[in-house]
């Protein structure tokens, strides 16, 4: 949810930035894959991959808890650590997106 919102926000920002920047700035020939646009696309791809991966992790954890409810505590802890490690990859891209400006 958070990453979806972040991505959606960055796209909105991109639309606003392009809309504002277009008339004012001098028409410097610039590749589309340069600057902010790259960051937004990269973040979208990273968020998509992260969503799939986290979904798989949560499915496995839920199945584990359903089969053996007594292990719920351990499974939850392990799952959260795993989710954090997966999420870290998107966070790297987010930091890179912050850096490209």
């Amino acid at each position: 949810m958070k990453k979806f919102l972040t991505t959606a926000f960055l796209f909105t920002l991109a639309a606003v930035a392009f809309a504002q920047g277009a008339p004012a700035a001098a028409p410097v020939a610039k590749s589309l894959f340069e600057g902010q646009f790259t960051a937004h696309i990269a973040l979208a791809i990273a968020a998509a991959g992260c969503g799939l991966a986290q979904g798989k992790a949560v499915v496995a954890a839920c199945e584990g808890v359903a089969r053996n409810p007594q292990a719920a505590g351990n499974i939850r802890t392990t799952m959260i650590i795993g989710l954090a490690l997966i999420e870290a990859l998107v966070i790297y891209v987010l930091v890179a997106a912050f850096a490209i400006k």
Partner: protein
Amino acid sequence: MEHHPSLLAQWLTQILHLARHAWPGFAHGEPLSVLERYDHLLNALLAALVAMAITTLVRKNLSRIPGPLQQVFEGVVEWVQGMIGDNIAHHGERYLPFIGTMALFVFFNNLFGLIPGLSPATSNWNVTLGAALVVFAYYNFHGMKEQGFGKYWAHFAGPIWWLMPLMFPLEILGLLSRILSHSLRLFGNIAGEHVVAGIFFGLMPLLLPVPMMVLGLFFGLIQTFVFTMLAVIYLSGAVSHEH
């Protein structure tokens, strides 16, 4: 990244009549006062003071019949104790003060983003990098203390001697990159959440940011848990003896 000083820093700047000037290489030369430039330190200090005040209050009023605040803090201590006990086999309790203090510091800093006018100090990489460096120094120190200097570093060379030239640099690289991942994870999560809440606030200040702030409360807790848990795991990896 643009710099948005917290309202508290701006307010204090006005009250104290601090001079604003440009900072070379920072925020595109925007004029900022010293408090606005270093507002993460202001917020971190404030969070630490609040945490210390609350814990001192609890410490002073310890009783056999715990009040609500004492129950909350007993829960926190038991939670950290459980986490250490699950991961570190022998004498884990000696690490409780450090890990618990760090968890409280990170937690209070994360939650300070939810108070209007303040920004979370953990949404600045300098603060999380500092925390990660302290954890890094702590577990390396205790690893060397528990296992001995030579044995601790020999541990990175791997079991096969002729693979040592390959393994040792890789393991050291992995050890150093832990600092980066440990700090960037906390920073990215809190900063991203804060930015999104800020955008929602910009769209409509009334009620719209509330769902995001609820998520922020949740993520602040989860990120504290993850940061503390990873610190405990790194520590357990450093101090555990191989039998």
